[in-house]
């Protein structure tokens, strides 16, 4: 087991900067998810950790050992790929044992490892099949098995669930999380799916344009996004973002949005700007709901669109030029065109600088 230290890593493809001065610590035993849209550099960073992508500057340490100049096979890592990357001409058994055979491990060691892995992943009955005779879920199981054989210091996952259908994806998600809980090995997991990131991670690094935008626990990322980008990328439905300007009143700071005064008496400013500055107010849909004891702001709005999801109902609301997405209890009957009483819990609000996009 080992943590990973990524120290000021830079990587460019021609004139395109893929990784800009990345610094990231992955704690020993953590499940770190690299989250971001396609092209943000998350897969490149994973490749750099694996040693598959040479880096231009910086150092990478795994378990305190500098691995920057080591070949992938010498870094004591294992990797699972999006396309599974099984060797198509080999049986499952040959696929799983390929690494040990390449390293000329003793036969009894290979047999023991194979048995242990096959039992753990319940693929004993598949050992003599070729990858083409397996379903997508079985293939990914075998690919994970191949990674497990190494008993590595670090597991790397490159969007391993993207090729699976929705149901299987949910199942495999739980399985990988259980695997992490059982093994306790450090895992780094790349995905663009924020649900995967939220459900599996012990820590999330949100990336954008080759830089890390925010690192934190899933709760941190969700409740206290460090930037407009993180706020918009994480969460579904997306966070409501309202342009306004900051004003001071005797009762504390207020955000004026299109004629609505939103009081923020208890807001924990990181960096309090002057009054009159343009800001963006961020409200998660779940704080826009039926008026209740925690509602600090009550509005009478118009219902525009009602989308029941079963567990709750997503409602789009309007008040003049302001539109909000709210999350209501399914028992609250709302129909398009009708008026809706809305209560907003401002304890969960976020404020961002309208220009720089950073959290205030």
């Amino acid at each position, binding site marked *: 087991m080992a943590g990973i230290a990524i120290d000021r890593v830079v990587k460019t493809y021609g004139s395109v900067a893929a990784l800009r001065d990345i610094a990231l610590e992955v704690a020993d035993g953590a499940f770190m998810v690299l989250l971001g849209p396609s092209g943000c550099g998350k897969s490149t960073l994973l490749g750099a950790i694996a040693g598959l992508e040479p880096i231009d500057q910086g150092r990478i340490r795994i378990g305190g050992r500098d691995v920057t100049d080591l070949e992938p096979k010498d870094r004591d890592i294992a990797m699972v790929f999006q396309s599974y990357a099984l060797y198509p*001409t080999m049986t499952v058994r040959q696929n799983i044992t390929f*690494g040990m055979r390449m390293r000329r491990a003793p036969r009894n060691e290979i047999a023991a490892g194979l048995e242990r892995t096959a039992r753990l992943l319940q693929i004993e009955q598949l050992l003599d099949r070729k990858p083409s005779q397996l379903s997508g879920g079985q293939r990914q199981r075998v690919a994970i098995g191949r990674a497990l054989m190494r008993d590595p210091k670090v597991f790397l996952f490159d969007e391993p669930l993207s090729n699976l259908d929705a149901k299987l994806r949910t199942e495999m998600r739980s399985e990988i999380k259980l695997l992490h809980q059982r093994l306790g090995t450090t895992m780094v997991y790349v995905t663009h799916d924020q649900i995967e990131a939220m459900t599996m991670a012990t820590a999330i690094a949100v990336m954008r344009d080759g830089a890390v935008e925010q690192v934190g626990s899933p709760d941190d990322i969700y409740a206290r996004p460090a930037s407009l980008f993180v706020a918009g990328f994480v969460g579904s439905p997306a966070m409501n973002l309202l342009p306004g300007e900051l004003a001071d009143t005797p009762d504390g700071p207020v955000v004026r949005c299109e004629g609505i005064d939103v009081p923020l008496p208890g807001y924990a400013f990181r960096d309090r700007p002057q009054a009159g500055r343009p800001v963006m107010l961020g409200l998660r849909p779940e704080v826009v709901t039926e008026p209740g004891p925690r509602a600090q702001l009550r509005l009478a709005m118009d219902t525009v669109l009602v989308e029941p999801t079963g567990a709750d109902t997503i409602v789009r609301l309007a008040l003049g030029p302001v539109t909000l997405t709210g999350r209501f209890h399914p028992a609250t009957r709302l129909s398009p065109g009708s008026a809706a009483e809305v209560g907003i819990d401002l304890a969960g609000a976020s404020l961002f600088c309208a220009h720089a996009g950073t959290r205030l």
Partner: protein
Amino acid sequence: MTAANADARATAAAMRGARGVAWLRPAELARVALLVLCALYFLFPVYVLVTTAFKPMHEIRLGNMLLPPAAWTTEGVVKAWSDVCIGGRCGGLSPYFWNSVRIAVPAVVLSVLLGALNGYALTKWRLPGAHLFFGLLIAGNFLPYQMVLLPMAITLSRLGLFGSYEGLIIVHVVYGLPITTLLFRNFFLGVPDEIVKAARIDGAGFFGLFIHVMLPIAVPMLAVAVVLQFTGIWNDFLFALVFGGRDFPMTVALNNLINTQFGDKEYNVNMGGVLLTALPTLMVYVFAGKWFMRGLAAGAVKG
């Protein structure tokens, strides 16, 4: 594939139901007739070749070229193989057959394996200058034989290999590399890079990856390249004539046999010789045909 077949069958069945038996319709009849005609056109010379080879000389002298032999005999073929005199040596074509084997087998193996290695290196290890190298290699595909003859002759004589097996093998390998490299490069482009990454993490190096992972994937393409190269090298006449020296291969011997200007033309022996010379390439198609077709159809490698 199977879905398409099932579709086609279903359509055909529907047509039969509506308009009677499908192959009796005029369009279908015309198509079958055309195919039969083409087959006849190509098979007719083969028919004459085979029947003449197995006729005794007195039947051939009657001039009934199209009649099958009244009395089948292998004397012509046997004589062509072991007895006929070629350029003053009277051992038949068999020693030249073995010359051909000695040239074709190493030349095919080397040109195919090196082509595969090139294709693998060009697609899976982005080496500096790979694009330029590949461009030059592609240009090599368009060089006509006549253009390389003289430079090749000079190079070989400088190397002291002019007129030797080794020299001829080198010529065939070098001349074959552009096409085999192109074949394997395009094939390996379709193999996902993630497989290469997985194998590198598993500890396979440049050659380990090639031998254990890439070559087994490329078996269909190996069949295509072997058939292509074997046919070309076995049937080659020009390079063999120029660079073959005294121990020339079967094609040159066959030419010497058939173009002999004196004595009675033994057509059954000549035809027997042609049959024997053509047989190995035919056999390669028969045995590698299944793989050949699969290789031609092969695009990407999916799981």
